[in-house]
């Protein structure tokens, strides 16, 4: 991978060379091709998709449905009926939780989530369980963030109806063996929901190989536009689930008293859809494919190795999670002794380094790790060794800037 030419594909990176953007787990930067695809939709194909009987509307429909096919191929789903466009991973998980629970979750049932979950893969289940009178159970990890098979098996019972688990933790970067856990959940008759927000952009995800029942991810974390996300769901579930939102273009037949629903996937896509966003996401997928997923993963692994080396050399820095860079997937969360994470982030910002500080929308995990607030640097393939060096350099001066001795 030619990093200089890759970086030239990203207008923001090209325009602001002084900024080291290391908050990729929050959102990724966008290549020109993605921006152009959104613009091209409005300039050449704009009409309300799925409705009009004229050629222009058909063109809009084609752009939208071709994007669905791109997503299907990208995660190797067996059918485009299983690909639902949403706004983001949060909405995808809310859809799954509301709709699946309405159809299948009953009083006394159990839903199992892990302590690693982002609030987006915990709160929808917490609330769905409450509505159904079901029990939400938490699966603990060890201090490195690893969920063991023994712990997983011990937490399952014959009452477990669903397991919701992230593939890669947005705080620790650790990867769960989704294929193994999904198989065990299925042995117990439980459905398996995978939060792919942090994994789909960084490792190759094949929903059939993993055999998950649902997979949620956001477009914007994989260089696509904001406002477009995906819920993959197995047809056998989606067919039996009620709609999540009601409105335009999700019906078959409507009377004053009742309605029948459109076929999959449109049953779950009420109202005018984000066709330009879908076009942008398809362009992001094309961009990934052009670079090659193996090349992306290899590049990010190399950056993880460099980052681990640089960060562990910073005095007074405490890294959360594994000491092995292979278990971080570009996500490094840490504290610096005596300095509040928000002050660290502000000082880094002064040096042009963008990182996240706070609880990372994972408060149960932070409570479990007994760290109310931390700093997170997260990498993408377009980052450079030089940017990681700037991060480490700025971090090594934080304590001094805050009035502490070396």
């Amino acid at each position, binding site marked *: 991978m030619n990093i200089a030419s890759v970086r030239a594909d990203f207008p923001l990176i090209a325009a602001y060379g002084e900024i080291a953007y290391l908050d990729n787990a929050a959102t990724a930067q966008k290549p020109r091709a993605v921006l152009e695809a959104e613009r091209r939709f409005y300039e050449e194909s704009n009409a309300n998709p799925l409705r009009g009987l004229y050629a222009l509307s058909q063109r809009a429909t084609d752009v939208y449905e071709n994007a669905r096919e791109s997503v299907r191929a990208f995660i190797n789903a067996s059918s485009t009926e299983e690909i639902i466009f949403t706004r983001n991973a949060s909405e995808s998980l809310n859809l799954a939780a509301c709709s699946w629970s309405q159809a299948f979750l009953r009083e006394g049932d159990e839903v199992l989530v892990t302590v690693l979950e982002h609030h987006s893969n915990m709160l929808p289940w917490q609330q769905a369980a409450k509505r159904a009178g079901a029990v939400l159970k938490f699966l603990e990890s060890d201090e490195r963030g690893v969920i063991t098979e023994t712990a997983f098996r011990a937490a399952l019972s014959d009452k477990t109806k669903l397991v919701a688990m992230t593939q890669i933790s947005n705080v620790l970067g650790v990867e769960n063996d989704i294929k193994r856990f999904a198989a065990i959940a299925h042995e117990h008759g439980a459905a398996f929901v995978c939060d792919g927000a942090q994994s789909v952009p960084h490792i190759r995800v094949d929903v059939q190989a993993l055999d998950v029942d649902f997979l949620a991810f956001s477009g914007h974390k994989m260089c696509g536009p904001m406002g477009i996300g995906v819920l993959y769901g197995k047809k056998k579930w989606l067919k039996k689930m009620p709609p999540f939102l009601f409105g335009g273009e999700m019906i078959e037949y409507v009377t004053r008293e009742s309605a029948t629903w459109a076929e999959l996937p449109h049953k779950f896509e009420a109202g005018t859809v984000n066709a330009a966003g879908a076009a942008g996401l398809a362009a992001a997928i094309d961009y990934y494919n052009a670079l090659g997923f193996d090349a992306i993963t290899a590049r990010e692994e190399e950056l993880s190795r460099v980052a681990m080396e640089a960060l562990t050399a910073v005095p007074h820095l405490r890294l959360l999670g594994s000491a092995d860079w292979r278990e971080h997937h570009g996500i490094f969360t840490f504290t610096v002794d005596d300095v509040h994470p928000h*002050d660290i982030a502000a*000082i880094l910002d002064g040096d042009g380094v963008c990182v996240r500080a706070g609880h990372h929308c994972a408060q149960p995990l932070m409570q479990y790790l007994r760290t109310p607030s931390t700093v997170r640097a997260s990498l993408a393939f377009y980052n450079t060794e030089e940017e990681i060096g700037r991060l480490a350099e700025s971090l090594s001066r934080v304590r001094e800037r805050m009035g502490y001795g070396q």
Partner: protein
Amino acid sequence: MDNRSFYNEILTDHNLRPGHKHALADANMELRGVNPSCGDDITLRLRVEDGVIRDGAYTGDGCAISQASADMMLDLIVGRSVEEAMRLSEIFLRMIKGKVTPAELDELEEAAALIDVSHMPARVKCAVLGWHTMETLLNGEEQE
């Protein structure tokens, strides 16, 4: 902005060596102030007699800005009347919005060191936590 100047000696000194970060046994007013999104958490205690703030202290955790700002505030208001403290607080909050005169800035003494927060929207709630807590506490007394 370049926060080399922002994290100045006045701010870091109040954060590292606060004069008012301790319990206050004879306090007659107490209120906790929290920024839920970032976790700054202080408890402000005052001893107010005859409309005058005789003593004040705080305890808690948070970023340097939230802690130093509370300490600077107490430096400024202890010994003053409630009315005067409220007037200074109003000036401080206006300073954070970037609308303050040089004469008013002088009145804030060391708390004026936080003027650059007006260019750091993300840190406004850290800087004003102590001051909002004090206003709520003192307003509460007036209503009683």
